[in-house]
């Protein structure tokens, strides 16, 4: 409460100093609450629970008050018949909130796994995609052909099939199970890492296409000028072409990030309990499909909007006059 008050209070000194950073917008507040909740859950369940021997997954908010309120609202509305409908909707909402408090701790773990899955895959994918795209644009004939084949193979086959091939048809799972630390404490088990590898390989292909298009749109004179001051071709690409290409690629790269957040739900098919996997497991046990999938939709939306907001920040932070589109 106190932070919300201090940001809304008309304190000109503070406003001057922090500028637009702390202008309160409902979206920002919503996202902030979401991430505070995710981090608080993680801290209690993985750190505090271990230290103090508490039960993992104890809800932060008890369900009982919601249930009793829902009951009394419903019984109050009963005599009014059809006229009491708005009150019944309120009762339903309170019932939904009561259910949500029970499910949210488990879903928070799902959020955490989805975030890890996406961040690992998109970052590792980027590390592969950058050299791939440079090879596509500047490589020799054979190297270009090899990079193109990889990209087409990955983009031309379903992600789910790639996931299954890695999980069931190779010994990757066995190998990963043998790696010390895998599945211990808060380090996820082998299926998670198979999913990371699969998404990395997939995302690398897509990202390399975005990057290739951006590298190609950097004016050829840039590399010529870099060569003319004595930089090698590789140095010219690294110091001159790639920095410009990355800036041009940001919008489409954000797109890939947003896709991957949602595509990562496919990992549930190989037993990874990420957000979607957890939701459908609980739904299969409780039959509360509607409630759970409304909840999970809200959580995915929060993740996607957070990613877009973050990349928006990155875009305006790296905006350079004359490189790509600059918003005023």
């Amino acid at each position: 409460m106190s932070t919300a008050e201090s940001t809304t209070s008309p304190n000109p000194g503070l406003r001057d100093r922090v500028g637009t950073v702390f202008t309160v917008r409902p979206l920002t507040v919503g996202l902030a609450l979401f991430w505070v909740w995710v981090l608080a859950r993680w801290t209690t369940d993985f750190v505090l629970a271990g230290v103090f021997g508490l039960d993992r997954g104890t809800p932060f908010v008890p369900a009982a008050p919601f249930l009793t309120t829902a009951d009394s609202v419903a019984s109050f509305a009963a005599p009014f018949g059809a006229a009491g409908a708005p009150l019944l909707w309120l009762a339903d909402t309170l019932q939904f909130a009561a259910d949500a408090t029970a499910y949210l701790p488990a879903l928070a773990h799902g959020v955490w796994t989805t975030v890890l899955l996406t961040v690992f895959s998109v970052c590792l994918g980027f590390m592969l995609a950058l050299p791939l795209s440079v090879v596509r644009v500047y490589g020799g004939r054979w190297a270009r052909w090899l990079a193109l084949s990889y990209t087409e193979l990955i983009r031309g086959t379903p992600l789910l099939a790639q996931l299954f091939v890695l999980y069931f048809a190779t010994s990757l799972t066995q190998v990963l199970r043998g790696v010390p630390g895998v599945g211990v404490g808060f380090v996820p088990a082998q299926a998670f890492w198979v999913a990371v590898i699969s998404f990395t390989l997939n995302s690398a292909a897509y990202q390399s296409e975005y990057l290739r298009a951006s590298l190609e749109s950097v004016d050829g004179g840039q590399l010529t000028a870099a060569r003319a001051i004595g930089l090698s071709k590789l140095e010219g690409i690294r110091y001159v072409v790639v920095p410009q290409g990355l800036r041009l690629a940001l919008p489409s790269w954000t797109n890939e990030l947003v896709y991957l957040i949602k595509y990562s739900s496919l990992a549930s098919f190989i037993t990874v309990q990420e957000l979607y996997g957890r939701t459908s497991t609980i739904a299969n046990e409780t039959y509360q499909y509607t409630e759970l999938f409304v909840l999970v939709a809200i959580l995915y939306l929060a993740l996607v909007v957070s990613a877009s907001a973050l990349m928006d920040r990155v875009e305006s932070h790296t905006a350079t006059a004359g490189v790509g589109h600059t918003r005023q």
Partner: protein
Amino acid sequence: MTQPLLSIDDLHKSYGSEEVLEGVGLEMDKGDVTVLIGPSGSGKSTLLRCVNRLTEINSGRIALDGQDVTGADTDVNELRKQVGMVFQDFNLFAHLTALENVTLGPKKVLGMDGADAEEAGRTHLEQVGLLEQADSYPAELSGGQKQRVGIARALAMDPELLLFDEPTSALDPELVGEVVEVMRDLAAEGITMLVVSHEMDFARSAASDIVFLDDGEIVEHGPPEQLFQNPTADRTEQFLSRLHAHEETA
């Protein structure tokens, strides 16, 4: 007789079946300012780009300070440290500020440390009158300012020879003067310059030599007053009169 700084001998270059340079020979001493003129397509820019090997030659010999430039075992990056180039379209690094444009080469190619490179970079920007624009990005500069940054970037490598590829052709007429003025200052400081330009003002006042290139060969070569006043070849005379006619209408 001392060894010339740049010597080009029997240079041939063709693109496919089209021969662009047909046996060009040229010598420059330290401090010379040679201006290449000629109709478009005569091979001026190609000749320039052969000198720093942005273009590979077919046959002939180019030597800088007695060192073979065109040999297979010549380190092109080493060569380009000694030969600066200024482009028609500026080609400033779009993602870097004016100062960063100037310091990239010294930092990454010459291995200077950041502070030294920046100090030297500021000196070079000052030399072209753009110290105040040090932190501006190319898109925020006028064409004339861009080209002056381009010159500062080339100067920052402390080259033995500066190549100018039509440095004022992409500029609005009112911006040409500031670039020509900088070039004239450099010429007066004794910097060796090989310039492709039709800026007659510069050619008359700063050039030590004018070379008229047509159809891939050097038609005439001489000091400006001689070449402009009493050209010996008909082709030179025709070209110059066309150029004058253009200047008067412009």
